[in-house]
C-alpha cells in the first residue's frame, strides 16, 4: 500500500490515525455514498468473501445492493462455491470481474481489497481475522468469533495492535427490537437491573459439549475440487468425511470444529445481555452449571456489578423447564429483569414487557433490515475509523463469558473467574482448558 518511495499513503494513514482521533472527522457526503450512483470508484469499499456458504451469502446479497461497496473476489476451497458466488456477483454488476481464489493468502495479498467477509466454519474465524488484520484488511466475521478464551483475547489484541475495524456477525446488536430492550435495561426503565436471561439454543440441536468422536474415513477429493488439509487448517488431523463439509453446518457438534451449544446462540444472546448489563468490558465472575449434556440445561452466572446472567436451554422444542416467567420468544431470545419491570424479545421482533411498560413499548419492531443495519454500521466505521457496535473488544468479552460457562459445564462444577487476570480462581484444571494447540503451521 506504500507509494514507490516506500512512504505510507494517504489511504494507509487514514486507516490508522483516524481510529484514535479525538474530534469527529468531517467526511464529505460523497465518501459516505449518500448520493446514489455518484460514488467514485476510488471511494467504494472493496470487499472479498472468504468461505461464503449459506450464512455468508446473506452478507454478500446485502452488500451487492450498496452503491459504495464493490464485491471484488471470492475465496473458497470448494470450486463449486467459488463459481456460484462469482456468477451471482458478475450478474449483479454485469461484468465478469469477480476474481476467484482457493486460498485466502491470495486475497490478503491484494492491496486493493479493503475488507473481508469471513464466513468459514468457526474454527477458522479467529486465525483468519487475525491474519486479515495484519494484512491491512478490515474484517466482518461471522459468529462465533473464537474457539477458546485464549483465542478471544488474541483476536482482540490483534485488532487493537493493527487498528483495523472489526465487526462480529452478531447483527442483533443492530436489531431494533433488541436495541429497544437493551436501552430499556440501560436507561433504568426496568428499575435496577437484577437478572438477564440468554437463550443459548437447545441441547437437542447443539449439546453444550460437542462430541469427541470421529466419523468414518472416506477417500479425499482432489485438491483442485476440495482441499481437506486446508479446510482442517488450525484443527488437528482427522480423516476426511464429506458430512463435515456438507452445507448447513455439518461441522457443528464435533469438538475440534465447534465451540458447543452455549456458544452457538450465546455468541448472540450473551453478547446482548452483557450490553444490557453494562458489562461489555468485562466477563461474568461466577458460573454454576445445571443439567446434563443430553438434557435441558442452564448455567447461572454473576457479573462483577451483581447482575445475574442465566444462560438457558431454549425450550423452543416443547421441553418443560422451571416456570420462572421465561416466555421463550423464538430464536435468540433475551429477557432483562429489573426490580420494577422486565422486557423480553427475540427474533421476529415481538416485544413483551411488564404491565407498567405497556403503552410505552412497541408490540413489535420489524427486524427485516437487521443485517442491513449491521452492515451499514460496519461500512460507516470503515470510512470514519470509528468503532462498530459489535467490535472485537465486545465480541472478545462476551465470548470469554460463553467459553467460561462451557468449561464450568464440562467440568460439572461451580467456577469463579478473575476478569482482570483472565484466569479461573483456584482451579488448575479449568485454567488448562482456556486454550487449545493450533495445528502447524497456523498460530494465533
Amino acid at each position: 500500500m506504500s507509494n514507490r518511495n516506500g512512504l505510507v499513503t494517504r489511504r494507509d494513514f487514514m486507516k490508522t490515525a483516524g481510529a484514535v482521533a479525538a474530534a469527529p472527522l468531517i467526511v464529505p457526503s460523497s465518501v459516505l455514498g449518500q448520493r446514489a450512483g455518484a460514488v467514485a470508484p476510488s471511494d467504494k469499499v472493496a470487499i472479498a468473501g472468504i468461505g461464503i456458504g449459506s450464512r455468508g451469502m446473506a452478507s454478500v446479497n446485502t452488500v451487492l445492493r450498496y452503491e459504495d461497496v464493490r464485491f471484488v473476489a471470492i475465496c473458497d476451497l470448494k470450486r463449486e462455491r467459488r463459481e456460484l458466488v462469482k456468477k451471482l456477483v458478475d450478474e449483479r454488476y454485469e461484468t465478469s470481474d469477480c476474481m476467484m481464489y482457493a486460498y485466502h493468502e491470495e486475497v490478503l495479498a491484494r492491496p486493493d481489497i479493503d475488507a473481508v467477509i469471513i464466513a468459514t466454519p468457526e474454527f477458522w474465524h479467529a486465525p483468519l481475522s487475525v491474519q486479515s488484520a495484519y494484512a491491512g484488511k478490515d474484517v466482518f466475521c461471522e459468529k462465533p468469533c473464537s474457539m477458546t478464551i485464549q483465542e478471544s483475547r488474541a483476536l482482540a489484541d490483534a485488532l487493537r495492535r493493527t487498528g483495523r475495524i472489526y465487526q462480529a456477525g452478531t447483527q442483533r446488536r443492530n436489531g431494533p427490537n433488541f436495541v429497544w430492550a437493551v436501552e430499556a435495561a440501560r436507561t433504568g426503565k426496568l428499575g435496577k437491573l437484577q437478572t438477564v436471561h440468554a437463550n443459548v439454543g437447545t441441547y437437542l440441536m447443539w449439546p453444550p459439549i460437542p462430541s469427541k468422536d470421529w466419523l468414518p474415513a472416506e477417500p479425499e477429493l482432489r485438491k483442485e475440487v476440495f482441499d481437506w488439509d486446508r479446510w482442517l487448517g488450525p484443527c488437528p488431523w482427522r480423516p476426511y468425511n464429506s458430512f463435515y463439509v456438507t452445507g448447513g453446518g455439518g461441522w457443528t457438534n464435533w469438538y475440534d470444529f465447534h465451540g458447543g451449544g452455549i456458544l452457538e446462540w450465546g455468541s448472540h444472546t450473551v453478547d446482548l445481555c452483557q450490553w444490557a448489563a453494562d458489562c461489555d468490558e468485562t466477563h461474568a465472575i461466577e458460573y454454576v452449571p445445571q443439567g446434563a449434556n443430553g438434557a435441558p440445561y442452564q448455567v447461572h452466572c454473576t457479573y462483577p456489578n451483581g447482575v445475574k446472567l442465566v444462560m438457558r436451554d431454549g425450550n423452543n422444542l416443547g421441553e418443560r423447564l422451571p416456570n420462572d416467567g421465561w416466555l421463550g420468544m423464538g430464536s435468540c431470545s433475551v429477557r432483562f429483569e429489573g426490580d420494577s419491570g422486565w422486557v423480553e424479545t427475540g427474533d421476529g421482533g415481538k416485544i413483551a414487557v411488564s404491565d407498567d411498560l405497556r403503552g410505552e413499548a412497541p408490540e413489535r419492531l420489524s427486524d427485516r433490515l437487521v443485517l442491513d443495519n449491521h452492515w451499514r454500521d460496519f461500512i460507516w466505521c470503515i470510512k470514519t475509523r470509528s468503532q462498530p457496535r459489535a467490535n472485537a473488544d465486545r465480541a472478545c468479552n462476551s465470548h470469554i463469558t460463553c467459553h467460561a460457562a462451557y468449561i464450568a459445564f464440562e467440568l460439572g462444577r461451580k467456577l469463579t473467574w478473575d476478569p482482570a487476570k483472565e484466569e479461573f480462581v483456584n482451579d488448575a484444571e479449568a485454567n488448562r482448558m482456556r486454550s487449545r494447540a493450533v495445528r502447524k503451521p497456523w498460530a494465533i
Partner: protein
Amino acid sequence: MRNIGQDNPAGQKPAGTSGRREKPEIPAEFKAESIEKLDQAALLRILGEPGSEPAAVFRKAIACKRLAVIGTKDSVPPLAALLGDDRVSDYARDALESIPDPSADVALREALPKLKGLLLIGVVNSIRRRRDPNAIEPLGELIRGEDAAVAGAAALAAGEISGPLAAKMLVRALGTTKEAVREGVAGGILLCADRMMAEDRKGALALLDLLSRSDIPNSARIPAMHLQVTAAASLKRPRVAPSQE
C-alpha cells in the same frame, strides 16, 4: 487411505437434494467415551501403542486431549516422543502446552534440534504459547537458520515471550536477516513492543519507532504507527519523538 482423483466419494450428498444429511454411524474404533474415562497411567500406555492408521491416531488423540486436562509431569516424556509424528504431534502439543510443570518447557526446547519443517514450526508455536523465557537463545538460532518459515515462526515466538533479551535479539536480527524472514522478525518486534509497553514504555516506544521506518514491511509498520499514536493518546499528552521521552 488417501485416494487422489476421487471427486464423488461414498456418502457425499446426492446432487439436487437439500436439507441436512443424516449423520453417518460412528464406528466403534472412533468412539471417545471409554478412553476419556481412563486414568493417566492407562492413557500413557495408549501413547505407546504402535500403529499409524486412523484408529490408532484416534486413540492417541483422545488420550492427549484428556492429558491436556489431567496430565502431570509424568506425561511429558511420552508426549514429547510423539512430537515427530505428523498426525499426532498437534494433539501431543496440546497436552504439552497445558501441563504447568517446567519439564514441558524443557521437552519442547529439546525437541527443536530434532525436527524440521512443519513439525518444528509446531513446536516453536507451542514454545510461543508457553512463553518460555529460556527459549530465546535457541529461537535466535532458528531465526538465523535456512528455513524461512521456521525463522519467521521463531521470531514471532520470541516476540511473544518478549523482554529485553528477546528485544535485543530481534533488533539484531532485523539488521542481518534475509528478506524472506524480515516480515516475521518485524512482526516479532511488534509483539515484543506491545507486551513490553506496561512495564518498559520507553523501550517499547523505541521498538515501535524502529518499526516506523520506511523499509519495514507494512504488516508491522502500520500497526507500529497505530500503537505509537494510541500510546501517546492514552496518556493525554502531545506526542513527542521517543528520543525526547
